[in-house]
Structures are given as C-alpha cells and as structure tokens.
C-alpha cells in the first residue's frame, strides 16, 4: 500500500494533464461526511465504467488504497463498502497494468477478508472483483492458496447464490494449475460441492463448473476415479458430460465436456472402448477440428484429440476414418490464407496470431494418429505436401512448432516403408541434423529418437547421415545429464554399429572412448545400460571385428562383463551380457580370453543351470561357441597363443560342462534342448 502512495506523486508530475475532475473524484473520498463519501464513490463508479483512461487516472491519483481502506473499515456502511468493491471491480476490468497496481496494493487479501462479512450483496461484489483479478494472466495464482482458510470458505460460499457460484467456480477454474492445487481443491470437497452446479439453471454456472472439472481431472487419477462414481441428480457424471457434448449445445460447452471425458479416460477412470469415448467424445473432438470452428477451438480440439488417442490404436484407427480428419488437418497449414492477406488486415492479424498454434496442433495430432498403424502413416504422408510441411516445420522459429513437427516425424519414422520411401525422398535427415545442433532438451530428445530410427540398417538415410559426422554428436549426447538423451545417443550408436563396416566401428569406439563406454556400463539408468550392451554386442560381431576389438579392449570388456554378471541386474541385462560373452567366444583369438579365465567359466556354468531359460540359453550358446570345431583352427594355431578346439573341449569336459550339456538335452524348452544337442555333437565330430 505504501508503494502505491509513494509512487503516485511522481507519476502526477509526468501526467500533468490529469484532469481536475479525476482529482475531484479522489478528493471526495476523503470528505468528512460519510454521506458525501458514498455519493462520491457512486459518482466515481459511473465515471469509470467503460473508460480506461479514467481508470488509469484514478489509480495514479491513489484512489485504490483509499477505496480499500473504506472497504475494510468496519465503521463504513455496508452500502459504502459494497460500492467500493464495485468500483474496484470496475478498475480491474481495465488494462493489465490496472490489475498489477491493484495486486500491488494488496487488494486480494483485503477482498478475501471481505468475504467473511455476512451480507450477500457485499460478498458478491467482492467475489466479482476477485474473479476479475484472478482470471488475469498477471495475477500470481498462488495468492489464492496462501491463506489455508480461503479455499474452505469459498466452498462454503458456493451455496449462497448463483453469482457466488459463477464467480467462485471461475476462480477455481483459472487458479488450478498444478497437481498441488488439484489436491488442495479435491481435499476441500471440490467435487461434491461443484458437481450439483452442472445442472444449475444458469448457463454461466454450468459452464464454469464444467471448466473446474476439466482442470481438476487433468492428469489426476485420484480426481478422475472419484468423478466416475459421482451422481448428479441420479445420473452418472460421465452421462452428464455426454449430454453436454450434444451437437446443439454451445461449442464451448461441447469442447470442455469432451476435455473432461478425455482426461478421465487418460487417467484410467474410463475405458478407451467405452461408448462415451468411442461414440461421443472422439467424434465431438473431431468436429472441433472442422473448418467451421474458430481457430482457437480447432487448436484445442486437435490437441485434446491427440492426447485422447495417444495410447490406443483402436481410437487412432477410428479417428483416422472419421469425417476425413487426416485431410481436414491439412487445412491447419493454410493460415494466414492468401485471401486474408489482401482483404482484411484485421483477419490477417488474427490468422497470424494463430498460425503457429494451428500448425503445432496439427503436427501433434498427426503424431498421435500415426504412432501405431502403418496404414494411417501412409495416409498421412500421402496427404498434400505433408512431408514438405514437416520438413519446413523442423526449422520454424516457434519452438512449439519445431517440437511438434519432430514428434510427428518421429511417429512416422516408426514405419519401415516410410523410412525407405518418403523419408529418403525428402532428405528428412538434413533438417533433422540441423535441429540437433543446438536445440533445447525436449526437442533434442525427440529429434535424437527420430534419428535412431533413421539409422536403422535398412534405412537409406543411414549412409548420408554417417557421412555428415553424426558420431561426434551422438557421443556428446551420451554425456548429457538427461537419461532420455543418453539413451537416445547410445541407441543411435547401437543402431549405427549394427552390421557396420569395420571403419565405422573403429570410429565409434574411438569417438566414444573406452572410458565413456565403461561409464555408460555403470549408468544408473537400465535403458542406457541395455543399449550400451547392445552397442557392444553389435561391435562384437563377425569374427575379425571381434578379435580386433578384443585385442585392444579385451581386458576392460572382460572386467565389465564380470562386474555386470556379479552385480544386481535384471534378467534382460544379464542375458544381453551373456550374449556379448557368446560373441566373444565366437572370435578366434578372443576365445582365449574366456578359456583362460576359470572364474568366467564357472559363471557360465552357473548360468547354464539357472532357473531362467533365457539365461540358460545364452550361456549354452557361449559354451557351444567355445567348443566349436574350427576348420580354420590350424591356421590360427600357428599364429599364436590359442589352443585348438580339442584342447578346449578337453578342458571343458574336465570342468563338468559335458554333464551339464547332457542334462540340458533333456530340457523341456525345445530351443535350449536343440542348442545343447548341437553342442554335444561337436564332441562327437
């Protein structure tokens, strides 16, 4: 309050033109006669209505602190206090700066205090002003939650009148932004208190109550689960929402009701095959994407629909054939239209403002549509200029659009066919690589994930990407703090190493560095560990490569393998590690690293008798490789250190592996049984 008072004189000097009348209004607030003060406030009310300049003048002249003072004084008459609240509400209806000034003057606690009064008219005036302040983007929503008694008191005021209902639900709908807010409101009985308002005779109340439920249910399983069991006038809440989606209802209502059901569905409270989702919510959201809707509605509709069907292939399939959705979305890229540029500057401005939003919403929806079904992906890429649009989307200035475009690309990149055709034709990798150079983490995650798919062995883009020096980039990703980026980096390297040239493998090992490689093997994130093992496995394939890698890094690799096999790891990790061991056993010289390591042989023996068939199989595979009769064995023996297959077989027999293999030929698992038999045959050969 002090800040306001001090500021005022300064600004006065600047605004020398502040009219005498404005000053007169403020002066009258200080009149000793309360009757004159009341008349002054009423006159002020009439003067400021619809007059932003007057509002600004009065704020500058320090009317707010005085009005607040009068509003809070218990000696003021109720009429005066009410009129003060009305004037403050009117001031709040002005510009954002007005709101800021009001908040700076601590209007919120003052008005919240006012709610404790028993007079309904006064409460309504306070609530109306609070509503206007709270729905402004410049007001920190946290101010609603600072005093813990406020929310329960607001809940209790819900029963007072339609106006209190409208204002309070509107405040809740705007101030529920985090899971904590949801919990606070939920714990104070928001659901039970607000649900009956859904059948209020007042449209405004119904609408704001509906909005409350949409913000309460968003990504909140607790709220959503509670909502499905709520009855309103004997009717299930989901049915009330379905009625609100009827096509003759106002669009805002249809859209918000669809959001509520979407959020409840995503939170697991309603099944995705429930009729209210399949036959009502989904078609309603598709309608929201149509050309007849406002641009804002189309954006919200598309985003909500994308969210609804993201995890469910059946919904994706239905949406893809509903009302030509795929081609309807192509219209989202036609803003600003060429017509609007010429004819109407206002429309151009409007279009421009929404163009980015529309594009990103369309990309998001395409991404969701194409995330599982091959036919849908085909349909999307065949939509007019779609690949070009994605490509140009990747380099747009708006980060939201870039992110959505790369999400879309990622979704489409899950298709072998698309990778081979449209992705290659449009050289998608180029903008993608550019995007990877310096982008925020969220974009990087998506882009690198897409890159992983582009680096798959059958992808024709793999070669040009390799040539563009991607290895360094990927190696740097593996050093990121974000687990998702580390996974993607190592994943891409793994894909790259699959059936790669010796040159590429050497380059990967060089660029990554053994130190980093082993750091990744002890990564806290299991995914990173798995992909790193995968990379190792891919590096250790084909005999010459195995021997070469093992000759330079054998010691460290064996150490790492030991560590993992001894550590607390999942079956999958251990299986992958045993597979690496099996690959090593397939090398010519590399074999010896295992044969000379009795400890390792004991471990293999242990896993051959493990209760998990997968691990048994991998260990048996490893032994099978060790006892294999080599045709080129002679040549190698002359070259050096390692002994022939006969020696290995003898050693292994001595260690009791034959008995185990014999036992395994009786195994119930056919694969394991076969593998053991094959290995046994080597002894007979």
């Amino acid at each position, binding site marked *: 309050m002090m800040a306001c008072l001090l500021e005022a004189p300064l600004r006065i000097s600047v605004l020398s033109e502040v009219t005498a009348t404005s000053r007169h209004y403020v002066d009258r607030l200080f009149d000793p006669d309360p009757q004159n003060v009341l008349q002054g406030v009423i006159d002020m009310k009439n003067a400021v209505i619809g007059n932003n300049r007057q509002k600004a003048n009065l704020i500058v002249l320090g009317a707010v602190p005085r009005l607040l003072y009068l509003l809070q004084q218990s000696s003021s008459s109720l009429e005066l206090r009410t009129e003060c609240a009305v004037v403050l509400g009117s001031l709040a209806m002005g510009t954002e700066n007005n709101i800021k000034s009001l908040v700076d003057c601590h209007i919120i606690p003052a008005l919240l205090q006012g709610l404790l009064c028993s007079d309904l008219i006064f409460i309504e005036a306070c609530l109306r002003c609070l509503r206007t302040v709270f729905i402004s983007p410049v007001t920190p929503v946290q101010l609603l939650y600072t005093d813990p008694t406020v929310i329960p008191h607001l809940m209790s005021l819900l029963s007072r009148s339609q106006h209190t209902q409208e204002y309070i639900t509107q405040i809740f709908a705007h101030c529920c932004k985090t899971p904590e807010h949801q919990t606070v409101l939920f714990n104070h009985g928001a659901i039970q208190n607000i649900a009956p308002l859904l059948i209020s005779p007042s449209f405004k109340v119904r609408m704001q109550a509906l909005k409350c439920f949409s913000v309460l249910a968003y990504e909140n399983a607790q709220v959503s689960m509670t909502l499905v069991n709520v009855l309103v006038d004997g009717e299930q809440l989901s049915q009330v929402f379905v009625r609100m989606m009827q096509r003759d209802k106002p669009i805002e209502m249809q859209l918000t009701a669809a959001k509520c059901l979407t959020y409840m569905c995503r939170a697991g409270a309603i099944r995705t095959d429930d009729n209210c989702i399949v036959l009502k919510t989904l078609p309603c959201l598709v309608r929201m994407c149509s050309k007849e809707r406002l641009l804002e509605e189309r954006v919200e509709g598309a985003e909500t629909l994308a969210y609804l069907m993201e995890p469910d292939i059946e919904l994706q399939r239905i949406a893809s*054939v509903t009302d030509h959705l795929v081609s309807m979305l192509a219209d989202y890229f036609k803003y600003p239209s060429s017509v609007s540029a010429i004819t109407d500057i206002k429309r151009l401005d409007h279009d421009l403002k929404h163009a980015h939003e529309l594009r990103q919403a369309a990309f998001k929806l395409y991404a969701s549509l194409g995330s599982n079904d091959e036919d849908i992906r085909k349909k999307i890429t065949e939509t007019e200029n779609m690949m070009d649009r994605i490509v140009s989307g990747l380099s747009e200035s708006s980060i939201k659009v870039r992110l959505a475009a790369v999400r879309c690309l990622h979704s489409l990149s899950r298709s072998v066919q698309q990778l081979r055709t449209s992705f290659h034709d449009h050289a998608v990798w180029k903008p993608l690589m550019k995007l990877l150079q310096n982008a925020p983490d969220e974009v990087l995650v998506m882009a690198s994930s897409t890159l992983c798919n582009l680096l798959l062995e059958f992808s024709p883009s793999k070669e040009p990407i390799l040539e563009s020096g991607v290895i360094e980039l990927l190696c740097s990703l593996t050093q990121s703090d974000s687990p998702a980026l580390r996974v993607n980096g190592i994943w891409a390297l793994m894909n790259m190493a699959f059936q790669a040239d010796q040159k590429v493998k050497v380059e990967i090992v060089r660029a990554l560095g053994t130190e980093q490689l082993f750091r990744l093997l002890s990564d806290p994130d299991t995914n990173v560990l798995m992909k790193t093992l995968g990379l190792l496995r891919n590096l250790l394939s084909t005999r010459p490569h195995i021997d070469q890698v093992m000759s330079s890094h054998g010691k460290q690799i064996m150490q790492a393998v030991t560590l993992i096999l001894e550590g607390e790891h999942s079956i999958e990790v251990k299986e992958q590690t045993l597979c690496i061991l099996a690959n090593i056993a397939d090398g010519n010289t590399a074999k010896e690293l295992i044969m000379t390591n009795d400890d390792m042989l004991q471990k293999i023996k242990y896993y051959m008798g493990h209760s998990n068939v997968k691990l048994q199989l991998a260990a048996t595979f490893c032994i099978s490789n060790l006892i294999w009769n080599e045709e080129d064995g002679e040549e190698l023996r002359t070259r050096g250190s390692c002994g022939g297959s006969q020696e290995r077989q003898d050693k292994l027999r001595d260690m009791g592996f034959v008995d185990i293999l014999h036992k395994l030929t009786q195994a119930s698992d056919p694969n394991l049984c076969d593998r053991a038999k094959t290995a046994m045959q080597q002894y007979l050969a």
Partner: protein
Amino acid sequence: TNPRLCLTAPIEFGVGHVVDGTSLVSAVCTAQGFVFNYSTHTSLLSADISALLLLTGDPAFNYQEHELNERLKRLYPAVNEEETPLPRSWSPKDKYSYIGLSQNNLRVHYKGHGKNHKDAASVRATHPIPAACGIYYFEVKIVSKGRDGYMGIGLSAQGVNMNRLPGWDKHSYGYHGDDGHSFCSSGTGQPYGPTFTTGDVIGCCVNLINNTCFYTKNGHSLGVAFTDLPPNLYPTVGLQTPGEIVDANFGQQPFVFDIEDYMSEWRAKIHSMIARFPIGERLGDWQSVLQNMVSSYLVHHGYCATAMAFSRATETMIQEDQTSIKNRQRIQKLVLAGRVGEAIDATQQLYPGLLEHNPNLLFMLKCRQFVEMVNGTDSEVRCFSVHSPKSQDSYPGSPNLSPRHGATNAHVHNTGNTDTLHTNIFEYAMHASKAKHIKLNLFTNVVYLHSPETSSAVDCVFWCVDSDSEMEIEAEHYSNGVTESSTRIMNGTYKHQEILQADDSSVDDSCSSRQLCGGNQAATERMIQFGRELQALSEQLCRQYGKNATHKKMLQDAFSLLAYSDPWNCPVGQQLDPMQREAICSALNSAILESQNLPKQPPLMLALGQATECVQLMARVRSGSCSFARVDNFLH
C-alpha cells in the same frame, strides 16, 4: 442489438423467393380483409397408423411397424405422408432381376451369376426421400459379403439403370465396400472411406438443406461424400457377386449412428439463423410492428384492460375506442356463457343494423339460442328458474362453464377462422437504454385451445425496464433488472377469475340432474314457441334468399334434440357442448369488427397462418430447412 423475433421470423427459402420476411409482416399489417386459408394434416398420420394396426395380424410385425411409425414421426415431423410418403422398404417392382427380396422387403440378396460388372444389380426403395425430412437417414447392415463383397450403398433417381451398382451412372451415387471409394455418377471412384464387409453397418445421410450426403460406418461419420445432390433421390443398394446379403433399416430399428444428435445441430443452426436474421436499419419499424401485433390481438379478443395497459407501456395507439372493445367483450362473454338471446339483444342495441345486414349470422345465432334453451342456459328459459337470480355478472347453472381442454395439443388446427386463439403469456421485455439502442424482445407463447376460456386465458405479463448506460455493471452484477424484484404487472385477469370461481361451485351438483330447459314447464313452452319463430325465420330467409342447405341442416339438428329423452346423450347431443359456442362467438366478433371497418382477424393470426403456410410451401419447393423451421417450434 438485433431484436429476437421469434414469431414472424423470416425463413430462408431455397428456390425462388416466395416472400421475404420483412414484407411478410408489413403485408399482414396493411392488408385488411386479407384472407389466408390454412390447414395442416399432422394429425392424420396417427389415424392411419391406428387403422393399419387394426388391419394387420402378426403381433411381432405390428410391433415393428409401430416402432417404425413412431420413429419416422419423431425424425421427420414436417413430412406430410399424404403428399410425400417416406421410404419404408425396398421396392419389389423397382429392381433388377438378379435381386431377391425377403423379410418384408427389407433383406436384399444377390441371385445372379456375378461373373463381372455386367452382372451388377440394384434395388430402389419404395419412395423417394421427401425434402421436408430436412435430414434423412437410413442404415444397411452387411449380413454377408458373399464371394467378393462388391456391395454399393447409396442413392439414385427414378429411372436410373438397375443393372448397375449405385454411383456408376448419372443421378446415381454410391459408396462401395470392396475399395471404400465413393462413386459420384461415374464409373471411376474417388478414395472416400474405409472398406466394409460382413458385420459392418453402413449408414447414409442425406442433408436436404445443403444437398450433401455423408456415410457412417458402425456409428462413425465418415465425412461428406457428395455435394450438390439433385432432389427426389431414392435409397438404393447394389450387389454384384453371389452370396451378398444386406439388410436395410429405414427406422424399423434404432440406428447405430446418433442421427438425432446430428439433426439437433441443424435445428439449432436454423433456429439461430432465424433469430439472428439481420434487420438493419429497420429496427424501429419492427418494434412498432410487433407492438401493434400484440395490441391488435388483445383488442380483437376484447381483453380491454390488458390492451390498455399494454398501449400505455408501449405508447402505441389503439384504433378502436375503449367502449367499443368493452361492448364486444360483453357480447362475447354472453355468447360463451350460453346466453345467446341476451347477446343478440345487446348486439342489436349496440350495433343497430348489423344483424339485419347479416341474416345468416342472425340465423346461426338464433339456432344457437334454441340449442341453449334446450341446454337451459339461455336467459329466456333461465328466467323461469327459481334457483338462480338473474344477475349481470355471474352465470350460475349447469353447462355454461366450458370444459377445460388440456394444453397439450399444440397442433395448429385451424378450420377457417373458427377456433379461438389464446395467448397464454406475452412476455414483453423492453430495455430502453438511455443511449441509442432500443432492444426489444417479444416472446409469444401461444397455445391453441378449443376452449372458450377467452376471458381468463390471457395473462399478459410485461415489464419495462429502464436501464442507464452502466452496461459493465449490469452485465456482471445487476442482471439488467430482470429479476424477481422487477416490475411485474399482472393485468386483466383477476376479474374473470372471480367469475369463473363462482361458477365452479355450482357445476358439480347440477351436472347429475340435467333436464330439458332446466326442467321448467314454462321454459319448455317458451322454447317450443321460440322454435316456431325460428322455423318462420328460416322460411322467410328461404323466400328472400333462396334455399340454404346449411340452414336447413342446422335447424334440423337443433330440432332433433327434442326427439330424445336425454338430449345430452344422443347422436346430435354434440351441439349442447359449450365448446360449440366458440365458432359462433368468433363469427359474431368478426362481424362486429368488420362493421366497424376493423380487420375481422387479428394480424397475429394472419401472420401465424401465413408462416405455417410458407413452411409447407417450402417443403413443396424442396427447401429442406422447412423441417427445422416449423411454426410449432416457436409456439409453446
């Protein structure tokens, strides 16, 4: 700031602007003696149905037929099936020979060779889709896709070759199961939707407002398939390979797709189009037109106090002077109370020469007077009764209180100008803001009743609110004064209610003992004498104007009452029903008004009649929006 005009709202005319909304109202207001005959057939359909139900034997079939009729009536209320019957099955006459029909002509199977496209075969429904449907829908279930699943579902005009699948020829449209393509009068299809096969339900919706068509698959809309459709298309299916079987649902069963939801969207669209019809600069004109409509209606029916209050509030002029209105009101009350003799006297006294110039009317009145004598209500026989003192303001005695009719029958049911229109409530809200805008809301909630409760049925509730320019506050805080505390003036009702209440007490006890002329001997003699005078009058009129069959019948019917011991329960007893007074009352009122050079029908009724007629005309000129612009939608 557009006024919401619910009553005479202009309607979009599809073909050729028959009349435009603004001229409609002015025409009504200026043209005096402008007569419009209107009648509707809405009630006929239900009669047909019940007749049909009595004729057919199979109870299951009856049930389905009943379901069908109910559903069709609900979906297409604007369709007059007398003029344009709805499709109910496939036509056994309008099909190719390779098509077989079964199950009440709803199941279609293929019975040709199915070698190639030359073996394709189609069948059309029994009738084309009437434009008055507004939105038409049918579904086809694929029972079996047969050998290759070459099924086509769609529409075709009469005369299109049936040795083809729908869509291949001019005026033929189809969606094919094998490739999911749509065929728009062409041998080559366009990619349209998914393929369909055994177990799928395909729906076809024709929008006759914008002449488009979309399909549905298992309840999901697939989007627009065709635009610029011609009128009079028939539902059509085509099959091409052996084993293909499909079942049609023209409304026999609930549809998989929620067509009523789609219709509701269009209904809302049309209604908002009507409500938002731009009237531009003519705002003031419209306001005064509407005010005059209300005012003249009140005046016409003699609701004097209400009319005066209304004209004070709206500052409108009333053409007729107050005494004249009151006189008419008095005469009407007398007729409706069954005191026709007094009514005749009053008319002769107040409007000398009127009845002399209208011998037909006089004769009708006298006939009615005779009937009322039988009834025991006319004062010439009532004066013999000991029970009831003759009084100016209360009408005791048996059947003079008209029976109450339920307000449920909201059908426009006008035969000539006989029925009485009762305006239930006029809510007239006027926001006159200090600034430049004058906003006017007029909701006319008109209920048609056959009851002669004219004097009591009108509650004219209106309020005027002066609002200053504080729009911001009003919109949010003070709800524009339209709250419980606003000025509500109940007008012109209380007096009549008192009268009727006084009657109520005497109804019950007298009902059981109805006797000719109230059971009084002298009265009966007076009645006989009056009958002779009536006979003489009839003969005189006959001499003067020639034979009049209507008069003869009227007289015969009236005299026949005496042939029965209990006239109230005899074949001609209907005449004694107080409801019968309405027609004569209305005729007399009109005659008086005409003699004063005032319109014999209130402009409101004319406008209503004209609007009703226009909507019917729209159906005939194939403007589908008529389905959702029905006059009854605006009458409650």
